[in-house]
């Protein structure tokens, strides 16, 4: 009896504790809730979804930005989400440049630019945005140290209320100034200083939207700001930017769905209206023959480029050109696309996307180490003869991050390479460990990585990855080749940036086989059919303000 009582008491206590903590967290609010402090909102949200006739769309994304600080490290999708509240001076999306807050910019000297602002910019707290605020914003961004593109920016000065002078140094490459203008969000000094937490939870920007509610790890809801949007230009008029249109939607909710299979299920159950990424397998659900055919529209976009970089340092067997060529001829990019990407992609023919503006169309048809086992074996034999080794003595290590598709690409490459009779291992690690191995000269021979779609030009990626004066890969496996550096600088400098110089660089890279493109994958989005047109912005992420919706068709 005593035992029963005690047990019962203990259980009750435990359940009570559980219920109390559950009540404290009360499901819909958390400690990290946005306080909507200095910003005015059109309506304060208390319940779950508010469909009182308001135009609302729910988008599923894979991760939480975690903070709204404008100058925290930016990941691709964070940038687009933050574009709901902040604006950069210029927007770069799908290789096009859009002037957002500026009427124009011009080069006034060597690496010196003058930028003219609109005069009627206000943020959602009502502060007037002027050139001083531009200087302040860039100052804060440089302070954070998170933007390597700003390294070329030497000085920034407000010439008058609406004109800013940017002075850069010689390290500026072609197209980089546009990136400088597009990567940094603009805030007013007044709002920033008024914010208690550097705008971590209650951002004040110059768009027409504010954060209505933020549940860390669960969702964000953006709603229209009471102060309206300063840009009154409509579609087709001067000054209009599709990304910041305020006429299409009133409330945007982003739900964080960390599991990719759940994204498709959420779309099917109606919990979300737009799936910002669905896997190639889940795509088949919405296509003909799939169980959900007709319930959603799917969009295909060119995704990321997989690059294989060789470790050309003395510690690696890949310092030998013959071996590199043997390896390059041994794998079939088409086969890799078939097996690793489920056929949803294309073989690569250069060091980055063919969507770049300075991509030479001749690249599409040149011999880019097309699969040829005989040639591969020939080069391998040359290598073995020169070094006196046997095929079985050679071990190639492929280094990747433990991402599903990268690992599959690596495994497929491994099978191909093993056809040569050499040993081949796949080393898949977590991101930080992989980086530390990649930056060293040992432990890897081929590194396969995805490069994100960032910029308009090939040269910005080239500069980032292969410029030995800038690149971190200098530490690990990079060869000191003066010719390469010369060609790179020729291609990157704005005066000499032409398709010919870019082509010369790519040609040389190909001949020396320092790094090769492997394949390009596709990314897929899906949305409910009542969304008449889903528009994507930078980084192939959904631009909810730009998309058009048929609200009457929404269930």
């Amino acid at each position: 009896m005593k035992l029963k009582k005690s047990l019962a008491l203990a259980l009750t206590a435990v359940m009570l504790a559980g219920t109390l903590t559950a009540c404290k967290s009360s499901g819909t609010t958390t400690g990290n809730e946005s306080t909507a402090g200095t910003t005015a909102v059109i309506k304060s949200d208390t319940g779950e979804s508010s469909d009182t006739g308001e135009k609302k769309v729910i988008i599923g994304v894979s991760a939480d930005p975690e903070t709204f600080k404008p100058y925290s490290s930016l990941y691709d999708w964070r940038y687009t989400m933050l574009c709901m509240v902040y604006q950069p001076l210029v927007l770069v999306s799908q290789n096009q440049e859009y002037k957002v807050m500026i009427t124009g910019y011009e080069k006034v000297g060597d690496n010196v630019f003058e930028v003219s602002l609109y005069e009627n910019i206000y943020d959602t707290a009502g502060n007037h945005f002027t050139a001083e605020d531009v200087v302040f914003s860039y100052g804060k961004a440089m302070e954070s140290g998170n933007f390597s593109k700003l390294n070329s920016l030497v000085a920034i000065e407000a010439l008058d209320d609406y004109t800013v002078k940017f002075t850069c140094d010689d390290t500026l490459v072609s197209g980089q100034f546009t990136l400088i203008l597009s990567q940094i969000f603009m805030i007013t000094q007044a709002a920033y200083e008024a914010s208690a937490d550097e705008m971590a939870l209650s951002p004040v920007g110059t768009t027409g939207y504010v954060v209505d509610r933020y549940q860390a790890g669960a969702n964000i809801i953006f709603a229209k700001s009471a102060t309206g949007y300063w840009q009154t230009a409509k579609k087709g008029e001067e000054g209009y930017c599709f990304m910041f249109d305020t006429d299409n939607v009133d409330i945007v909710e982003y739900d964080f769905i960390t599991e990719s299979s759940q994204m498709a299920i959420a779309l099917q159950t109606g919990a979300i209206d737009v799936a910002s990424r669905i896997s190639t397998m889940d795509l088949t659900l919405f296509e003909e023959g799939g169980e959900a055919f007709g319930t959603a529209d799917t969009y295909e976009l060119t995704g990321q480029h997989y690059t294989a970089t060789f470790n050309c340092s003395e510690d690696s067997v890949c310092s030998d050109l013959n071996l590199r060529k043997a390896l390059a001829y041994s794998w079939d990019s088409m086969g890799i696309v078939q097996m690793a990407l489920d056929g949803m992609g294309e073989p690569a023919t250069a060091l980055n996307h063919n969507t770049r503006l300075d991509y030479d169309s001749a690249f599409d048809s040149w011999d880019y180490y097309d699969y040829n086992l005989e040639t591969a074996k020939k080069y391998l034999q040359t290598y073995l003869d020169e070094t006196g080794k046997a095929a079985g003595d050679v071990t190639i290590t492929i280094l990747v991050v433990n991402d599903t598709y990268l690992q599959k690409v690596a495994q497929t490459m491994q099978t191909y390479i093993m056809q040569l009779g050499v040993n081949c291992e796949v080393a898949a690690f977590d991101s930080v460990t992989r980086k530390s191995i990649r930056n060293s000269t040992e432990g890897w021979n081929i590194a396969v990585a995805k490069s994100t779609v960032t910029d308009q030009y090939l040269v910005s990626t080239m500069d980032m990855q292969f410029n030995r004066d800038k690149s971190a890969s200098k530490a690990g496996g990079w060869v000191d080749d003066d010719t390469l550096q010369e060609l790179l600088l020729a291609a990157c400098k704005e005066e000499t940036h032409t398709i010919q110089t870019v082509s010369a660089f790519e040609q040389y890279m190909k001949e020396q086989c320092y790094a090769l493109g492997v394949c390009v994958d596709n990314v897929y989005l899906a949305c409910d059919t009542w969304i008449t047109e889903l528009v994507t912005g930078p980084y192939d992420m959904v631009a909810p303000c730009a998309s058009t919706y048929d609200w009457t068709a929404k269930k």
Partner: protein
Amino acid sequence: MKIMEKRIRCPQEDSRRVGHNMNSFLAENESMEAIPKKQSYFVIIMQRVFKNPVATTGLIVFVIMVLLAVLAPLIAPYDYVEMNPLNRFSSPSWKHLCGTDDFGRDIFSRLLYGARYSLSLGVAAQILQLTLGVFLGCIAGYYGGRTEQIIMRACDIMQAIPNLLLAIIISTALGIGFINTVIALGVGHVASSCRLIRAQFLPLRELEYVEAERSINCSASRLIFRHLLPNAVSPLIVQTTMGIGGAITSAAALSFLGLGVQPPTPEWGAMLTAATPYIRYYPYMIYFPGICIAIVVMALNLFGDGLRDALDPKLKQ
């Protein structure tokens, strides 16, 4: 405190007075003098296990799986690395008993080869956990007092550190490889085994026959191994046999540290993980490795039950 004290055999006559457990059935065999006690004890236990048909079945099934793993090169119809782009995702058929995976490789062959790694990793990790856990738990349970507190608090500390961290530091400090993987898998759970044994010892410490044995100068190790442990070990058998499935799947989770098995080498846990994007479309890719793991867990559990029954002195054999 010395565990291995001077060996003094507990006199046979006294055991009759005590009347409980081991000595009661050992006393049945009067020719005990000639045969070393340890061996006969083990043999007797095993004989009891074999009398139990269910347990024997479990053991046989497990042995069959081990044999299949060992004979994999002879039995497997295909090479486990052989990729076949034209034959991806083919359903189970006579040609491919378990179908093919996303690379066109035959799943049945991969399961056979995978058995080598999964069985050895899973069983070795559990044995490590069992051995260390029993050792620490016995010391804590037997000596009590400050020793027990220290060991139990050390268990608290060990269990508070996430397994992932432990695995990272093991792979960093010791490197990769089979033994280090086993250590990484087993060491995190030693504390739970230790606690179980110590918990079992708590009430046993008070039993009269234990006091009696002590009073006749029975050594600590004899006391522990002959009298206390057989009574205490049964929950541990359950925990160990049920934990093998978890150990096998954990091995896959560690592969990104370089531990465990690297592709393309097959391993059941890794096959499960690799099949996750395809669960809705090609479910057989997850059924077959899952069934293999389930069979091993079931077989060992049945055997474990039989072992527990055999160790239980109260059961009329």
